[in-house]
């Protein structure tokens, strides 16, 4: 017997028998509760998980069978005996059908009872064991099922395509995203798939399937699936090993790298454009120097002086371009150390106009600067905002017509300060307007031939405005003039 005493419930309306059995069993080392009628029997039997219950079949209030049903319903592992003198074969059958262990005919001897109880107790132990085992098994199954659904849910949620192929070339696991990367629209589990894949991908898989290598490395390829950079994929194949280091299969992960490739292309185009733009002034200066030292070419002093001056203009332009490029690069890398503080736009624009005084007078341009109040402020880096308006005002001067006008005004619209810079210059054609903010674009026509510039000014303007969550509007009419409207968020204070 175990540490805890086996607990037994005796339900009998016959007092003598009840007490006799209790005494007997208590002497045998059992803990015994008694109930003197069916109602009490049900109460106790459904309250405590007894090891064994001995239930009298015939009781005045509730039938023993009823008590049995109730106990079994609540505690199926309580071993129940039906005891009665009114034995009949039918009731015995009925009782066992309803879950009774056996039928003890009255009267019984103490020995008979003890033997039955002992057997019953063994049965109880088995039931408990079985129950424990079943519970464990259920929990494990639940866990496995959960793991499996969880894994599936995760794999199905991945936007990259996942395909697992076993050693025989059968598809064993895949997610819906994989179809985007394959030429066919249906995979069946356990279907032979190798002959359906692109040769490049098959080659990747075969690196593992056709070798005995236990290397845990992966192979990657990039493929242009649709021409003209419309769809680029990257496939990475990695081996899957059994615990014993035997190859189980190969997992292939497909990625859509179209956007990445597009950026790469833009980057390389940008680099070629930059090199071309940098080469032009270098070539010009180089050409002048070469002419000047060429013994076969006779230049007079005036020509030489002219060439040196023109070389300097080109070098100056080159320097400006390099500075602009560095600015753009810093902005792209977000390494610009900003000093955000409350700055006054009117102040900044006044300062810029002062700096351009000489150019303005030289071109005989009239500048009107209108603002309602002096305290139009924004939270920004003063250098950046100065740069922004310097570029715009410089353009308004450069691309203006001789004796033209520049009208600058600042107004508040909602939470934004709107600065308008309007010139009476050469204006732009529709197609030029579209390319306005792209790097190295410069309106090239008979008006602009002699205007120098890096082609980066407006690109920088746009970057600065964007970085402050602002907005630019452009209105332009070819040969009439251009208006830039810059929206910048008003200072919060």
């Amino acid at each position: 017997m175990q540490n805890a005493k086996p607990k037994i419930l005796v339900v009998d309306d016959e007092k003598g028998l009840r007490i006799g059995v209790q005494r007997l069993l208590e002497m045998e080392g059992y803990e015994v509760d008694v109930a003197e009628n069916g109602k009490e029997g049900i109460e106790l039997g459904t309250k405590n998980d007894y090891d064994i219950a001995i239930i009298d079949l015939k009781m005045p209030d509730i039938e023993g069978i009823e008590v049995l049903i109730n106990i079994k319903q609540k505690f199926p592992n309580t071993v129940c005996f039906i005891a009665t003198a009114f034995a009949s074969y039918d009731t015995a059958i009925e009782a066992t059908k309803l879950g009774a262990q056996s039928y003890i005919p009255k009267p019984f001897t103490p020995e008979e009872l003890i033997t039955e109880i002992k057997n019953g107790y063994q049965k109880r132990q088995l039931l408990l064991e079985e129950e424990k085992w079943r519970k464990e098994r259920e929990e494990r199954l639940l866990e496995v099922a959960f793991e499996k659904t969880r894994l599936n849910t995760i794999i199905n949620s991945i936007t990259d395509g996942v395909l697992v192929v076993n050693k025989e070339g059968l598809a064993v696991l895949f997610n819906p995203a994989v179809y985007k990367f394959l030429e066919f629209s249906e995979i069946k589990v356990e279907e032979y798939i190798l002959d359906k894949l692109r040769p490049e991908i098959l080659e990747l898989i075969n690196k593992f399937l056709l070798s005995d290598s236990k290397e845990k490395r992966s192979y990657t390829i990039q493929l242009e699936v649709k021409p003209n950079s419309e769809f680029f994929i990257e496939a990475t194949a990695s081996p899957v090993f059994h615990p014993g280091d035997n190859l189980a299969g190969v997992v292939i992960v497909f990625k859509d790298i179209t956007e990445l490739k597009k950026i790469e292309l833009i980057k390389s185009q940008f680099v070629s454009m930059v090199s071309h733009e940098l080469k032009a002034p270098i070539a010009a200066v180089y050409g002048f120097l070469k002419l000047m030292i060429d013994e076969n070419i006779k230049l007079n002093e005036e020509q030489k002086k002219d060439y040196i001056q023109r070389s300097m203009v080109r070098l100056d332009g080159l320097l400006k371009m390099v500075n602009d490029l560095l600015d753009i690069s810093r902005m792209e890398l977000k390494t610009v150390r900003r000093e955000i503080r409350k700055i006054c736009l009117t102040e900044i624009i006044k300062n810029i106009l002062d700096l351009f005084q000489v150019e303005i007078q030289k071109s005989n341009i009239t500048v009107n600067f209108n603002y309602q109040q002096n305290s139009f402020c924004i939270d920004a880096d003063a250098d950046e905002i100065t740069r922004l308006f310097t570029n715009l005002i410089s353009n308004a001067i450069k691309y203006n017509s001789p004796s033209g006008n520049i009208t600058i005004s600042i107004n508040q619209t909602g939470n934004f300060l709107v600065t308008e810079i309007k010139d009476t210059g050469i204006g732009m054609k529709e197609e030029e307007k579209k390319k306005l903010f792209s790097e190295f674009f410069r309106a090239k026509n008979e008006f602009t031939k002699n205007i120098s510039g890096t082609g980066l000014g407006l690109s920088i303007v746009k970057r600065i405005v964007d970085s402050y969550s602002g907005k630019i509007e452009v209105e332009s009419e070819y040969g009439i003039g251009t208006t830039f409207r810059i929206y910048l968020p008003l200072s919060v204070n």
Partner: protein
Amino acid sequence: MNEKKKILLVDDDLDLLEQNKILIESKGYEVITANSAKEGWEIFKKTKPDACVIDLIMEEYDSGFVLCHRIKKDEHGKNIPVFILTSATYDTGFKFGASTSEEKEWINADELINKPVVIDEFVQKLENYFELNQRK
């Protein structure tokens, strides 16, 4: 040479235009310049030069191509050497060039001259064409 051959030089970079003019003139040619494709075409029609040298990338990236094409289709133009001047090649990452035979056919230029111009090589090539044309 009995009389100076007339060469039309088209480039939108005024500095390079002047430098190449001086270089080519130093070799005994007459040089007429134009600094846009549009102007180039007008001067071509007016002066009927003996050869054309056109910068590839001008105001618009393809204006050199277009001018070259027009000249080569012209009654006078189809019989004279037309050279394209460029620094834009595949080496510098441009998507177009004149290195394959297909492109050369499309561009329709007789020669592709890299910048900066190596004047002696340039003259050599030019003279080859003049000689060839004379024999015809």
